[in-house]
């Protein structure tokens, strides 16, 4: 951990944080010439609000017991979380060029054993929320007031295990559990809403007994308000924030590309995307 130049810039806005997360992700995408860049750009705002508004943590001690736990159920979003962990000073910026390479601490799919700040091994979808249920029960047993955040994708709403966990979180009154759903309506074969998750999202969670909010997940003000509500609620129930996000957000020519789970980016387009992002750098 000694090589990390911890980022301590209290006057940096959430918009600037989100911009940096997008930039880190594009740089990593360029290293591999591919990757889940569409998801990273789409989730940058909710990650910025998570790591620079909501979560309590110590950048120099990622396993500090008082931290809020952030579980990445969607392993392939690792590129997005690495980008946020770099901005948070938990991972060193100078390892960006190792992304997905041999011996890297930042493999393509997120795994707990590889990366500081990566709490769980995700990737087999539908696991995160169930693990979060157990951890939330464990925190309560210990009298630890930390929150568990679980970031999952809309595609994971198709996994039956997700709904086992949804029911259980209500059963155990897990008011220390905040689930974030990145609803970008894309999964491997097409639109999520054409496959399984076409129902009324917030109402479904509410019917199970959750406190549900459904917001524009690329609107920083809406995200801040939703996180504040989720954290301050006194009802003994778990909370979900369904974040409607746009794939590739922040790079218009990619936003307009025919949407796919795995957005195709030509080799020369990485520099173009970075240039466009740089032009829009928030002040």
């Amino acid at each position, binding site marked *: 951990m000694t090589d990390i130049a911890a980022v301590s810039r209290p006057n940096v806005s959430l918009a600037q944080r989100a911009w940096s997360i997008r930039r880190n992700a594009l740089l990593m995408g360029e290293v591999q010439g591919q990757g889940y860049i569409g998801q990273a750009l789409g989730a940058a705002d909710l990650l910025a609000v998570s790591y620079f508004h909501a979560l309590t943590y110590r950048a120099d001690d990622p396993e500090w017991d008082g931290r809020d736990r952030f579980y990445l159920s969607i392993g392939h979003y690792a590129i997005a979380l690495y980008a946020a962990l770099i901005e948070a000073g938990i991972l060193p910026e100078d390892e960006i060029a190792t992304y997905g390479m041999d011996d890297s601490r930042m493999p393509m799919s997120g*795994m*707990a*054993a590889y990366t500081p700040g990566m*709490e*769980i*091994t995700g*990737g*087999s979808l*539908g*696991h995160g*929320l*169930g*693990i*979060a*249920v*157990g*951890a*939330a*029960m*464990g*925190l309560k*047993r*210990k009298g*630890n007031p930390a929150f568990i955040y679980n970031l999952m994708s809309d595609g994971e709403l198709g996994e*039956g*295990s997700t709904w*086992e*966990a949804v*029911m*259980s979180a209500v*059963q155990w009154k897990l008011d220390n559990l905040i689930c974030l759903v990145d609803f970008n309506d894309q999964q491997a074969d097409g639109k999520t809403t054409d496959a399984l998750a076409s129902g009324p999202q917030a109402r479904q969670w509410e019917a199970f007994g959750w406190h549900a909010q459904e917001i524009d997940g690329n609107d920083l003000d809406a995200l801040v308000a939703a996180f504040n509500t989720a954290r301050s609620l006194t009802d003994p129930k778990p909370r979900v924030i369904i974040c409607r996000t746009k794939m590739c957000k922040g790079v218009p020519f990619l936003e307009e590309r025919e949407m796919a789970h795995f957005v195709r980016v030509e080799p020369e387009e990485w520099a173009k995307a970075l240039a466009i992002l740089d032009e829009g750098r928030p002040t």
Partner: protein
Amino acid sequence: MSEHFPMHSRRKSKYEPRKVPESKVATSAMIASLDSEGRDTIAAPFGNALIELAKTRDDIVGLSADLSKYTDLHVFAKAYPDRFYQMGMAEQLMISAAAGLAREGFTPFATTYAVFASRRAYDFICMAIAEENLPVKVCCALPGLTTGYGPSHQATEDLAIMRGMPNLTVLDPCDAIDTMQATRVIADHPGPVYMRLLRGQVPNVLGEYDYQFKLGKAQMIHDGSDVLFIASGFMTMRVLDAAKALAKDGVSCAVLHSPTIKPLDVETITREAATGARLVVTAENHSVTGGLGEAVAAALMREGVHVSFRQIGLPDEFLDAGALPTLHQQYGLTVDAICTSVKTWVSE
């Protein structure tokens, strides 16, 4: 050996009318204890061992997926209600939640039937627990052929499934003594464990011998010069009885009990197999595919120990429903069936 590998079921047509059989043996209840065969028994060895552990260890918690009464976890739940988590009929959730509890420093004992853990919850045991080497103990009742309910409840391939999982320790204890001792030992083991359970009134067999469960160790329970049984689970009881019966017919049998299926005690097994010129016979309450027998065979081949080798186990097929004693007879797990097979093999 060809009878172990039938290509089709022996079952009669479902359209063929049946009469009440002369035996009038009914399907044993799913919750029935393994036939104690006139031995002393100990009640709920797993649940009671867990209670003892919990007295000194605050980190011990128990989880059930609606089967606490049928895994003996109910006695723990009664003794420590605030350390018992009823997770409902949701095995994937129970395993994931156990992983979450382990992440927060607890030592969860997650219980269900062996079929549900090994078949339904495999991905969750694998990725939420084993990949991260978390100390969750998955303890499962109805191993192998211990119910007459048919394939939905008969975990005839659980050891084969679980042996494939890295990091996972796989146990098949013999009796109440073995189960109680193993429960204490695995609580101290820093990694994940899959353990088969006998529940209810469980025979006490190993109490007659100078035996102490040791993780990763096969132990000689009874020595002999003609045949070397290598057995796990309740088949160790059966081969001990078979050894006594065979001795009367002049066949001297050793019984090496190997409750740790993985990591297999290759050193002891190869040493014993290489000692003398004994016929090596593995015996397991599991399919002949992928369990103790094949693990032993592969170990002997790898170590260059060439012996005459036979396997006693369940056929690689979906087993019949019916009464357990009948099924044990039908599939060759009884003492008589073992004796008959061994006498044939030693005379070949």
